[in-house]
């Protein structure tokens, strides 16, 4: 234990130096800004800043870049809540209840609880990294393709819970998402699937493009349907801060979300993408009135935001302890370290303790800065909702196209954006909720990849999935969850049939 305190003291010495504090602040501020600007993610920003980090000491460079990353996770929820625009996979879930809350004049509590949940999660996850990083990294190594496949399967079953309407429609939307996920080059054979000879489709459809089209564009069209809609608001703007009741509802979702996110974030093979979805599914499942979800339940914002931030934080574990990047942002961090002449790997912790612990302590400082920075801003953001809609939507549209263009600097992505915009509107018209589709789209390629890899490694033996204790357990959980979800609705159907 005292070793931990020594280490944290080393880290504090580095992280709390005036220069590093200033850069950390700069990082989280920039991160928040790009998080708010849709489409413009941490990847684009960090890559633009890479050359600048040439001139900084390695600790300062990493502290700044890390700040951009988790700052963007904070900022991402703002546009999701205010205008239903998810810039990253983690904010899709925030859109569901956050935007519903905003329309009811409760954007203030939604944004505040998001900030508070993120802060709590960030602090806990930082502590988790500091105390258990090496142990957890070794645990993550136990996860092979069979385990990841099982995890993705569980995620897909949980995706059904995201929808509040028809169960069959939700399943169909998941499969449609899986189908969209197959567009592009097949990893195992190099065959191009559903690319129709278009070179830009060879790498598949970009998530940002798809979610912007399906959520943001179609939402604008829906809003333009009605004549009298002058602002996004349906009711008057209420209080800014959450009420005691809101807090009471949110506390356990935040704690559970933090736990889930911290666990999933450790897995370098794509666990972090699941964290916010998993938290939402859990909260809706155990809620006393699941019917409130999707219509402005504060638990549906608090839990996923905590999970997403905790996951973002703990996804540094594989990077810092093994030198393995768990997502594209972490791959960039490796690039940044190499520019500095540091080779990331298992030795970092012992060879460069001030760097390792400095980055960790800076995360805590950065989270504190974020909450101080973001809470007062909420009052300003809310004013945006009062802007007449006829002025707001062209601006949203402009932000959308800039964001989508900046992902690959390709105008063709805007064509895809239009296609998904139309599709998203059709979905609304025919009563199909889009959230399960997006989760299917994210998980589908991973599901296929891990399934096929597990079979290559086992030389075609299908029993690997159940023989292996971890994957066997997760698959059993998925099966049970499926039964829990499906049975009540079948029973209801039968009752209805009997009544007739």
């Amino acid at each position: 234990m005292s070793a931990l305190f020594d280490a944290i003291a080393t880290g504090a010495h580095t992280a709390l130096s005036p220069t590093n504090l200033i850069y950390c602040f700069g990082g989280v501020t920039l991160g928040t800004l790009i998080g708010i600007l849709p489409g413009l993610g941490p990847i684009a920003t960090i890559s633009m800043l890479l050359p600048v980090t040439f001139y900084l000491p390695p600790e300062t460079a990493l502290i700044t870049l890390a700040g951009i990353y988790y700052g963007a996770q904070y900022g991402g929820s703002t546009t999701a809540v205010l205008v239903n625009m998810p810039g990253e996979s983690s904010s899709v879930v925030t859109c569901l209840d956050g935007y519903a809350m905003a329309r009811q004049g409760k954007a203030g509590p939604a944004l505040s609880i998001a900030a508070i949940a993120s802060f709590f999660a960030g602090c806990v996850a930082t502590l988790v990294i500091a105390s258990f990083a090496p142990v957890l990294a070794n645990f993550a190594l136990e996860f092979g393709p069979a385990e990841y496949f099982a995890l993705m399967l569980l995620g897909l079953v949980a995706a059904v819970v995201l929808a509040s309407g028809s169960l069959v429609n939700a399943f169909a939307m998941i499969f449609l998402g899986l189908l969209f996920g197959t567009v592009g080059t097949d990893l195992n054979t190099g065959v191009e699937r559903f690319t129709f000879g278009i070179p830009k489709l060879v790498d598949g459809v970009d998530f940002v493009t798809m979610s912007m089209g399906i959520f943001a564009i179609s939402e604008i069209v829906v809003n333009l349907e009605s004549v009298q809609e002058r602002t996004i608001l349906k009711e008057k703007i209420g209080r800014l801060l959450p009420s005691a009741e809101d807090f009471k509802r949110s506390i356990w979702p935040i704690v559970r979300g933090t736990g889930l996110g911290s666990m999933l974030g450790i897995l370098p093979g794509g666990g972090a993408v699941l964290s916010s979805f998993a938290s939402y599914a859990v909260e809706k499942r155990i809620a006393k009135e699941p019917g409130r979800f999707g219509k402005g339940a504060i638990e549906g914002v608090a839990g996923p935001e905590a999970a997403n931030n905790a996951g973002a934080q703990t996804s540094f574990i594989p990077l810092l302890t093994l030198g393995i990047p768990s997502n594209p942002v972490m791959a960039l961090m490796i690039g940044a370290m190499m520019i500095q002449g540091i080779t990331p790997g298992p030795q970092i912790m012992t060879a460069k303790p001030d760097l390792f612990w400095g980055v960790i302590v800076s995360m805590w400082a950065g989270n504190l800065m974020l909450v101080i920075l973001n809470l007062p801003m909420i009052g300003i953001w809310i004013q945006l909702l009062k802007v007449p809609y006829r002025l707001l939507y062209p601006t949203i549209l402009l932000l959308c196209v800039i964001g989508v263009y900046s992902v690959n600097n390709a105008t063709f992505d805007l064509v895809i954006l239009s296609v998904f915009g139309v599709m998203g509107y059709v979905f609304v018209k025919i009563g199909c909720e889009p959230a399960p589709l997006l989760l299917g789209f994210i998980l589908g390629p991973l599901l296929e990849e891990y399934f096929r890899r597990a079979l290559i490694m086992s030389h075609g033996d299908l029993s690997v999935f159940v023989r292996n204790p971890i994957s066997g357990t997760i698959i059993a959980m998925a099966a049970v969850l499926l039964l829990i979800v499906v049975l009540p609705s079948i029973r209801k159907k039968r009752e209805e049939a009997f009544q007739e």
Partner: protein
Amino acid sequence: MLKRTAVVFGALLMLTASNAVAWSQTKYPEHPIKMIVPFPPGGGADVLARMVGQKLNERWGQPVVVENKPGNAGIIGANEVGRSKPDGYTLLMAASGAVVANNIDRLAPVALVTTPPYMLAVHESLPVKTVAEFVEYLKKNPKAVNFASSGVGSASHLAAELFMGLSKTQMTHVPYKGIGQGVNDLISNKVSVMFGPPQALLPQVAAGRIKILGVTSKERYPLFAEIPPVAESVPGFEAVGWYGILATAGTPDDIVKQLSDATNAAIQDPTVKERMNALGATPRPGTPADFRAFLKQDTAKWAELLSKVEATK
């Protein structure tokens, strides 16, 4: 309102006019240069482009704007440069994979930057110490050993295919999305073999999880002089990656020469050299003609290998 429009319009015209004047002059470079990196940011090509771009900027006082146009293993970005105006203001920082038979004619080689080797790594538990023992082991256990690659047709895949072809051995291919995921499964012994870049593998050696059997360059590589080349045991084996700058075909020779000289100077600058070493590479200066010859040989070699691999499927 009308007045304001007129002012804006006037300003527009003036801007266009000043651009046109800049055009008519011949001194190079007169305005910022765009360097397209056909890969996502943060990778080797991206880091090199930013380092070289900065040096070119210091030399000429014109900014070099690095733009990432990833997609289709680099071919999308390379094709874009192929379609650009041949004026030396749109450059490509290419790497193995981006330049292929059907776009090579639309590009003008400027300068090779570096040809870093890969390394043959195996999990620490595999009972072999040298490449020769490894070949023996594979012959005893055909198809039983799995190797990781960063995707079908990637350098790490092709290196392994070449190795199997020349050593007459068989392993099972496990493709990954990128090097990192492959290394992850290599250190946890879910796959046992990987041909990968040194900077991804060497840290894991120090941690005792894997061992390096050889480098893929034809001879010992100066940075890693203690590691023998795979070719010592498998004659004829050579599989190096490459990074180099290309312009659009038809770019005037004097501009290509200026660019080539500037690039050669940039990559031999001590600070750039040092950072390249951290990436596991040493500069490889040369003329545009050298680069052209290298490219021709390299693309032909891999195209032949790839068609052989596909024929066996």
